[in-house]
């Protein structure tokens, strides 16, 4: 017998729980500008350092530094800032609406707005995003009507989803935003298929898909990665690592064993690890991967490192499993503040203009919410009930028609 201690079972646990001081000391983040930028079409084998770096452009003082600076025009930056601020205002309003009983459910994307707003502006028209439910800023960066969002949240007569979906589970084909569902990861492979179809047709469109850190443990994630790698699909596969999957910290998905970006190595896909709270870095990484995909060099895995500031949803109380002030200790800061500081530093923005914009957007959201409430909050003025029997199939079959009569909503 060898003289070994007995085996013990490792159960990962986060570094701080309620009542303890937040601790992110286990995360190592290279300085802005430190991670190199290889050519878009470099062989994957030559960039296996990237998953362990961190693509950052914005320095602590709001300066843009290093090889990943996308040199974006100020108008585009202001557009992105507006989308993020609008998202924040919209989230606040809808979250409050839930507390007022106007809807059943809501989820905020606070702190993660850059991970959707920047890709929205970096992708081309006709590309398709396969989103998570924390990506409203993708739609708002494309000027999707607030009325549609409000009406969907209230499931009223103006709801484009016809009262069939929980709040946030939008679909907006014309805006390059694929249909959402509450189950996680099962659309990751659709993005690969969509991208393969584009390649099959000799099109120039690409797909971009998102899952959270927790969802990387789903089989769907692995399947999509395999297909993306095997067929060189023109797709960008993204992991939004916001540190928390409801109450499970990212270590429960294997995030302390390696980085999520490093999952790409096993499939032969480039893995970029990106500061998800840095609008410029998110934009630049998306642009790089999109360029690679459009050049027929296949898929890229991107990990956006960010932090879920709010609870998982209106049904969640994060103070029960993490320190109450953990968000303030998050070392990558706030995406809105960081882009604002950058614009001010460029001389393209000011605190006064920022405040004025925030006020304007608050008013815009208030007006949209009021209009939505006038049309009806949850249960008050839903779409016609007979529509619940439509779209099961392209044409209703005899069961749909019989049951519509049985339900008493034939007319």
């Amino acid at each position, binding site marked *: 017998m060898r003289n070994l201690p007995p085996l013990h079972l490792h159960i990962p646990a986060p570094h701080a729980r309620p009542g303890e001081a937040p601790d992110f000391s286990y995360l190592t983040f290279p300085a802005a500008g430190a991670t190199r930028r290889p050519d878009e079409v470099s062989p994957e084998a030559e960039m296996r350092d990237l998953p362990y770096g961190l693509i950052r452009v914005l320095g602590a003082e709001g300066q843009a530094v290093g090889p990943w600076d996308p040199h974006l025009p100020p108008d585009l930056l202001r557009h992105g800032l507006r989308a993020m601020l609008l998202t924040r205002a919209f989230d606040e309003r809808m979250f409050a609406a839930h507390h007022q009983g106007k809807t059943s459910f809501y989820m905020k994307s606070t702190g993660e707005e850059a991970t959707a707003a920047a890709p929205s502006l970096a992708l081309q028209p006709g590309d398709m995003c396969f989103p998570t439910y924390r990506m409203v800023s993708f739609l708002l960066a494309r000027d999707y009507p607030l009325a549609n969002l409000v009406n969907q949240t209230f499931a009223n007569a103006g709801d484009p*989803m016809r009262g069939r979906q929980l709040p946030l589970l939008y679909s907006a084909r014309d805006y390059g935003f694929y249909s959402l569902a509450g189950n996680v990861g*099962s659309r990751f492979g*659709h993005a690969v*298929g969509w991208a393969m179809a584009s390649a099959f047709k000799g099109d120039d469109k690409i797909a971009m898909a998102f899952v959270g850190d927790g969802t990387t443990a789903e089989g769907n994630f692995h399947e999509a990665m395999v297909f993306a790698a095997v067929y060189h699909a023109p797709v960008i596969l993204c992991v939004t690592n916001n540190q928390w999957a409801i109450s499970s910290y990212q270590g429960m998905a294997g995030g302390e064993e390696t980085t999520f970006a490093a999952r790409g190595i096993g499939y032969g896909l480039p893995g970029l690890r990106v500061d998800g709270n840095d609008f410029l870095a998110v934009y630049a990484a998306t642009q790089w991967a999109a360029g690679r995909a459009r050049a027929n060099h296949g898929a890229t895995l991107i990990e956006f490192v960010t932090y879920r500031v709010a609870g998982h949803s209106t049904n969640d109380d994060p103070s029960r499993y993490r320190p109450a002030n953990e968000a303030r200790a998050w070392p990558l800061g706030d995406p809105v503040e960081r882009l604002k500081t950058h614009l001010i530093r460029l001389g393209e923005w000011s605190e006064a203009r920022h405040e004025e914009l925030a006020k304007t957007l608050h008013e815009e959201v208030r007006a949209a919410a009021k209009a939505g409430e006038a049309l009806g909050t949850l249960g008050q003025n839903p779409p016609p009930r007979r529509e619940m029997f439509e779209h099961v199939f392209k044409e209703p*079959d005899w069961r749909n028609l019989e049951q519509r009569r049985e339900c008493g909503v034939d007319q």
Partner: protein
Amino acid sequence: MTQMSMIQAIHSALDALLARDPNVLIFGEDVGYFGGVFRATDGLQAKYGPTRCFDTPLSEGGIVATAIGMGAYGLRPVVEIQFADYILPAYDQLVSEAARLRYRSGGEFWAPITVRAPYGGGIYGGQTHSASPEALFTHVAGLKTIIPATPYDAKGLLIAAIEDDDPVIFLEPKRIYNGPFDGRHDVPAKPWTDEPGSDVPEGYYRVALGSAAIRRAGGAVTVLAYGTMVHVALRAVEETGIDAEVIDLRSLVPLDIETITASVTKTGRCVIVHEATRYGGFGAELSALVQERCFYRLEAPIVRVTGWDTPYPHAFEWDYFPSPARVAKGLRQALEG
């Protein structure tokens, strides 16, 4: 018209649509260069090129997810699951995604995919190559489930399935790929040649989804069957001399409810035959529908002749497989009841 086996007819359908519609493409395990373990795609890659018919990783979930994404883009993917027993890793994709995409997106996206899978027993495949999982799909709102029983129908229904804008599960009774097996495992297997339904047009034609076929008209009792069991039922009718009306459902969803109710209304008796396990099987739905719609015309309890509620046992194939003798017993039971 040409004489075709069912596998040749399926091949012919795929060939016809690859030629006709540039948005049709085929993929699955071993279907490309090799042509599929049952030869359904033999030579199609050579004829149409590697992007029209290609191999995939061994990942049923990945295959169907990819197909849904392609369908959402605007293609008409046809995927092969090598055995229906192995479709379960794709079940989440079929149930949570393909079946609901049109509904949940308010009609913005849909999945016009066809999932082909050889199913059923009688081939000494044991419990991993013999399953009849149709009820797992007929229970799901938003999926169509088709099962042919002849080469002619296999081709026409497959073409209609591929051209359909909803997701279709196309289950192929592999025991009758090469000949119309009637359940007599102790007599030499016969080929499709000159059997009813083996005259198949070489070109394009459709058999509409949702229409049953009356294989034998009769007045004494209605037999509802599909796939291999249509042939077993016909054999049982021949052996007993009972004047049964044998209905080949062909399409489980959408179901031809009118043909079923018209027949049972006429005969007053009903025997349901399928190879799948009985409890919660598609026969249970058929039984409920007949009872709901024909109760006052029924002269006897509805009889189900099915596989037993066990996994498919390798060494007891012919104890499990509903034989002509068991169907005959069911027919007599329905007549006596």
